[in-house]
């Protein structure tokens, strides 16, 4: 399950952190995002996806949304959840938990 989205350390974006950490297959994640027409920079240990807002996807499942707008971050988070079959967050327990692309 993801913890509640929170501002990152420098207050420049919102991060979503899964607890416990996931083990995402970043190649599969990249392929899935590209099928949605999203441009992805593959840095091997993380992906940088040109969603709106941009997001960094780490292998552990940590997501960093480059926006200071919590509603925009939450919308992007829910979009990614659907595309990548990620677990829900602690504020959204109506959505069933899943394991993510692994």
């Amino acid at each position, binding site marked *: 399950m993801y913890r509640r989205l929170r501002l990152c350390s*420098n*207050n*420049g*974006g919102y991060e979503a952190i899964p607890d416990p950490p996931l083990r995402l297959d970043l190649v599969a994640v990249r392929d899935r995002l590209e099928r949605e027409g999203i441009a992805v920079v*593959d*840095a*091997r*240990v993380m992906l940088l996806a040109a969603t709106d807002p941009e997001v960094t996807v780490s292998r552990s499942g940590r997501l960093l949304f480059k926006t*200071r707008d919590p509603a925009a971050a939450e919308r992007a988070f829910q979009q990614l959840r659907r595309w990548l079959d990620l677990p829900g967050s602690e504020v959204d327990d109506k959505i069933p938990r899943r394991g993510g692309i692994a």
Partner: protein
Amino acid sequence: MARGVMLVSGGIDSPVAMHYMLRQGHELVAVHMDNRPFTDDSPLEKVVDHLAMLRERYRQPIPLYVVPHGSTQTTLMRNTDRHVGCVLCRRFMWRSAERVAEREGATFLVTGEALGQVASQTLSNMHSATVAVGLPIVRPLIGLDKQEIEAVAKEIGTYGISTRPGVCCQAVPDRPATRSNLVQILREEERVDVEQIIDDCVRKAIIL
């Protein structure tokens, strides 16, 4: 006075270092390594605002080279040991700055580094990073602590710009090396085409 090239990040330290150099009458050219998409737009925006303030204060044009660095970060992350990523990244920054110095007729490089301020700013890491270049490097803040630097930043008016929200560099590894081994650094660097990367980045630089 001499002409130098200064690496500027948008943080608290680099405008303070620049202030000291300009106050002494040196002529500076600024180089910002643009880390997008590993950061957001905020570092560049901060640099632009810092320079507007310092240009006004010292009546100097201070050209700004914005050198794309994101693709270099991607190449390093895909091909080299993450543990030494910060040192490798710094070596490419210094090389880019030196290339700009050649173009601008500058004879030295400047940085806002202060010893031990972050995990990667250790003597061995600074040495491993800077042996990549031949020009002398000036570090006006090397012996100052953070509070002293912040006090000057507040005095010259750059502190409020530096502390605006922004996304930290996403390429920083979880556990960056604090003691780097130059032999290992050179071995890691052999995995990438250094000259090609620097050529590409400096060619794509824009001047503001």
